[in-house]
């Protein structure tokens, strides 16, 4: 079952990297979170920790439903054009993504050695997710893309955490979830403000403060 989920996560991430329009991006983010949710759920079932159930539940509530919903609603609200504003076109992005995949594989292999195949793979995937989140933030113009980038990176970290050290301590996990949610809300508020003041959410054009 696990390889399937891993594959799903990978696919979702690739979808994000090549996505041209914001809703598509959000949707693929949803897939990714959903796969994560499945993964944690299986782990919960396997290990039978009540904590893990709660975590996966939170994952579903926040990352799969609430946040994407919130973001989609925001798009409707501000009627910004749905174009992501690519600084690097999709083909090139794809190549980058492939590069990232290789890079993260090499990196995690170097980190863990060949001791534990699956762990290495999962680590590689999570690093790849982090990298592609970074990529989204750097090469997509709109504010929303950056929010999603942050979320994607966070997803990657979640995966990494659950993979390498069997998740964070429960309390921390909860706190982080809470934190992420708050940060998304706050970023959303600022997106509204930006839209109000600049009449666009193209953060690439925000360059009044320089030097």
């Amino acid at each position: 079952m696990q390889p399937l989920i891993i594959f799903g996560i990978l696919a979702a991430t690739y979808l994000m990297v090549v996505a041209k329009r914001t809703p598509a991006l959000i949707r693929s983010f949803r897939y990714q979170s959903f796969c994560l949710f499945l993964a944690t759920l299986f782990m919960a079932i396997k290990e039978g920790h009540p904590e893990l159930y709660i975590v996966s539940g939170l994952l579903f509530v926040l990352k799969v439903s609430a946040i994407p919903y919130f973001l989609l609603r925001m798009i409707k609200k501000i009627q910004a054009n749905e174009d992501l504003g690519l600084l690097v076109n999709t083909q090139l992005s794809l190549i980058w993504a492939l590069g990232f995949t290789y890079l993260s594989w090499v990196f995690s292999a170097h980190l863990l050695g060949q001791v534990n195949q699956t762990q290495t793979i999962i680590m590689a995937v999570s690093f790849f997710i982090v990298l592609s989140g970074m990529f989204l933030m750097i090469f997509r113009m709109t504010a929303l893309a950056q929010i999603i980038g942050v979320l994607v990176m966070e997803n990657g970290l979640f995966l990494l955490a659950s993979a390498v050290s069997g998740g964070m301590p429960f309390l921390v996990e909860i706190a982080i979830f809470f934190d992420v949610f708050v940060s998304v809300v706050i970023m959303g508020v600022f997106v509204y403000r930006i839209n109000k003041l600049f009449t666009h959410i193209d953060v690439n054009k925000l360059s009044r403060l320089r030097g």
Partner: protein
Amino acid sequence: MQIFFILSIPVMLAALCLLLKKQRALSIINAVGYLLELLFSASLLIGVVLSRSVISYFGFIYMDALSAFFIFVISVVAFASALYSIGYIKNDVNKGIISERKARMYYLFFNLFCFSMFFVPAVNNLGMLWVGIEMTTLISAFLVGFYNKKESVEAAWKYIIICSVGIILALLGTILFSFAFSQAGLGKSLNWPDMAQAAGKMDKNLVKIAFIFILVGYGTKAGLAPMHTWLPDAHSQAVSPISALLSGVLLKTAIYAILRFGIITIQAVGFSYFGNLMIIFGLASLAISSGFVLVQKDLKRLLAYSSIEHIGVIAIGFGIGPVLGTVAALLHVFNHAVTKSLMFFGAGNIISAYNKHNMNAIKGVLKVLPFTGVMMLLGMFALTGFPPFSIFISEILILIAAFLKGSYLIAGLMLLFLAVIFAAFMYHFSKMLFGNLPRDMKPQREALSIKLAFIFLLFHICALGAVLPFIKKDLIWIAQRLLQV
């Protein structure tokens, strides 16, 4: 015990902001509250240092001398800026820049912000540490975007995004550390003492990489070049008392986090790795800031870049280490906090008097705001490391440490950059402070609270030279405790 008061007072004050309608009364109560805060943290610091002990409550709160020291620094600056806010916010309200309601919001966020900063050094769990630092970002973002102008919102956006990215990298580092910890076969914990215990057993390679992520991540928050880019924007756009808090203590909390992990790294892979990285970032920050300070036009940005410079100095201090360098860096943390707050207060007064940020357009401050002008002049010399002010002491100590270590190049570069920065400051300030009264302005009177804040800080700037001989032993003890030597 004090720690609970320290953590609860801001919360109560925040609650008060929602209840109490009168901005004036609120501000005064606020100041009083932070005076208490200051007293508590002072007693805490003294208690911890004198008893050479560690305070820890049910595994959640863990406070050694380092934490107590940082809490003390925070409370000093927090008190000063609470004091300063009385006059400043009142002025803004009177001018109609902000409404009464907005003023109350200000105090609300102010308190939450302070709470989050007090929270950071107090917690035991490194994950919680991360959460706390993320919190500081989220809350202060509102204070950066407070005036809701185009610039301020842009600054807030950059601030929040860049810092979140940095923070996430820090989280990655944290996870790797916990991974290293669990690999060492000690189960699953992020509590500081456990990790510090296990540091020796961790996998060196892993720790190295993890520390890189920590350094870049929290370094972004601390404003180390080249991740400093958010800093000048945020500092220049924030409300002036908040700018003081930001560069005075917020950066220091990030430094605190770096130190926590740094200690583990030192235990695991030896000092030189930690040291080299710190020194590289420190020198980079010095170089960058010296360049930008030279050609800066915006007063608050100038101060922001000088914060980057001082963070660089602190980093160099910790990087040169062993004991002397660490002591010096700790001192520098405090000195920079108070001095820079003073400068930001002065800048706040000047800007609200002239309504302009551009230094070339500001002339004759000494005539318009005599008190502030004098304070700025003194503060400028203090900031650029002139005796008898305190920054001179910490910088010379760092240099001594560098020379004793035989790393002449670092010391030489540091001297060079400091000289350049001093020249730049002279260049800007002598044009700004002196000169005749501008035609369209008349001398203005400064509010009492503002003057008090200035005097309070100036006292801290000058006092160090006097008290140093008495606290020398304790400082050295802290440093040794910190390096576990």
